[in-house]
């Protein structure tokens, strides 16, 4: 019982900052502090008219979509290989691919910065962020897709081949439909990660910032803070929507494979 109380207190701790977001986003005052000043939607209106923000959002969306697609493709290769033959060194290779999961992002950021700017002499842009985001999203995709591929009975594909399908046909007709929910949640999760990532984008963005980099800039101006709150509210709502979708897809995948639910997507 006392554990349950602790758990609820913990959830309050987890949600405290997020609950504040909409409160200040609709607060009619430019100082982010209590007491509240009254209700307004002007900060949301300001969002709609800020061209620089729109550009940043556009950049972020492009980067997030492309990174999500690339990372999910790479993740599928690794997850699929994970269920296949064992060979010496496979664990090491997989471990190396998963390394960005525990590597401080600043290390990834500075090392890529050095290579792109100093070694290759290229200029930064969205493509550099895409490459880096694909790198850090891939481990998450692998973790999600591993679940999907490992739930799959190996003999399913063999049965399809036994019944006359080629290797590719068996993959397309049996494996793909069964892991499809995993693929969707992998896309959604990596999209969310990329959209939210700051440090790498901060180091690697060229002239046009991504949304988090733009927000970082705003944080220095106190009078812009309510606008940040409004933007944050929208982002949180969007994240929750995407994550709920991802979770629904994951559960549907389990149901389709006739399996019991064993936990979350990490």
């Amino acid at each position, binding site marked *: 019982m006392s554990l349950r109380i602790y758990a609820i207190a913990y959830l309050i701790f987890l949600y405290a900052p997020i609950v504040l977001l909409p409160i200040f986003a609709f607060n009619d005052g430019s100082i982010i502090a209590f007491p509240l000043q009254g209700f307004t939607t002007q900060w949301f209106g300001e969002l709609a008219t800020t061209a620089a923000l729109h550009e940043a959002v556009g950049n972020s969306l492009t980067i997030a979509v492309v990174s999500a697609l690339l990372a999910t493709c790479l993740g599928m290769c690794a997850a699929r290989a994970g269920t296949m033959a064992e060979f010496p060194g496979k664990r090491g290779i997989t471990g190396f691919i998963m390394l960005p999961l525990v590597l401080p992002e600043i290390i990834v950021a500075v090392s890529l910065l050095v290579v792109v700017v100093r070694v290759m002499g290229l200029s930064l842009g969205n493509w550099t962020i895409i490459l880096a985001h694909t790198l850090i999203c891939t481990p998450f995709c692998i973790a999600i897709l591993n679940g999907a591929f490992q739930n799959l*009975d190996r*003999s399913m594909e063999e049965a399809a*081949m*036994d*019944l*006359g399908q080629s290797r590719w046909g068996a993959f397309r*007709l049996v494996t793909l439909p069964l892991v499809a929910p995993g693929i969707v949640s992998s896309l959604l999760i990596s999209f969310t990660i990329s959209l939210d990532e700051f440090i790498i984008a901060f180091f690697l963005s060229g002239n046009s910032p991504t949304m988090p980099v733009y927000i970082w800039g705003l944080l220095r101006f106190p009078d812009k803070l309510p606008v940040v709150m409004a933007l944050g509210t929208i982002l949180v709502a969007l994240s929750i929507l995407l994550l709920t979708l991802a979770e629904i897809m994951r559960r549907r995948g389990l149901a389709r494979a006739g399996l019991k639910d064993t936990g979350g997507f990490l």
Partner: protein
Amino acid sequence: MTDLITLQGVNKYYGDYHALRQIDLKIRQGEFFSLLGPSGCGKTTLLRTIAGFEETSSGSLHIDGRDMRGVSANHRPTNMVFQSYAIFPHLSVGENVAFGLRKDPRGKAEKARAVERALEMVGLGGYGGRRAHALSGGQRQRVALARALILEPKVLLLDEPLSALDKKMREQMQVELMRLQRQVGITFILVTHDQEEALVMSDRIAVMFEGEIGQLDDPETLYRRPNSKRVASFIGLMNFLRGRVTEVGAQIEVEVAGLGRCAVPAEQAPAGAAPGDMSIGIRPETLAILFEGETTDRRVVRGMVDEVVYYGDMTYYDVRIEGVEKPLTISMKNLIGRPVLDVGTATRVAWDERSLVLLAG
């Protein structure tokens, strides 16, 4: 009968592990063939080699006269019933059965009729529209059978198909599989670790140990005249005694520890039996306890009841006999009026030299 499948000198290695050792095997057209052995003996590997899921490291495999080298599973005239059944959970029962018909030139309606016929054949008529993951174990098994048989393969491969079922269901499916095999007339190859299942269902059985075929025979020969100690102990119950061959002729003269001199028919011994030490096997049901007042014209030896296990229809006695290393197990039907003896009872045991088997190894 003609040979449908021929394996010659087949070896399979996984790294250093030698999974199949120099397998030579001919499987005939239309027979019910079983690969029997303990887990890890290579029986499933052999089956998967025939199906095309494993490559051989060396040796050749022909099915219906065609060399199968480089022929992948989807192009082989074999179909398989998987141990897990591998019923596609995202498809209905009917779609599962029709899965292999994609390249079939027949029209849609005709295919649907074929699916229904296949389902009827396995006793699932009218199940076509059901979701696959709502089926029971026995029903899944039937769908797997229908799905494989609809393609009219030359060989049906069954990988421990009954191991996931409970005892009653298993016995029912045994009978049904035999009926199906007779009905469609194609070759069935069954992998099992259950010797009873193999004995009941098969025309011929290959007993495998450590990647080798230990003995290949029909069920009766396998049971009556196992060629080695490991085959004898894997199939049914067998008492082992120490013996010494003294003379080999039309009959084989053996000195059996505890039982004395015997003359064993030559076919009860492996080919090339020579004078020297050998193991002697004797089945529990060929021995008999002589109850009070019973007489026999068979040979008799005295002993004492060491252990009694009551099975309802049968009673198993372990009887200690002087000069015999381990107590002999004897199975007796519980006929009306026949008592169940207590441990410690002195008793007489009737036996017969014709039921002795000489064993190599």
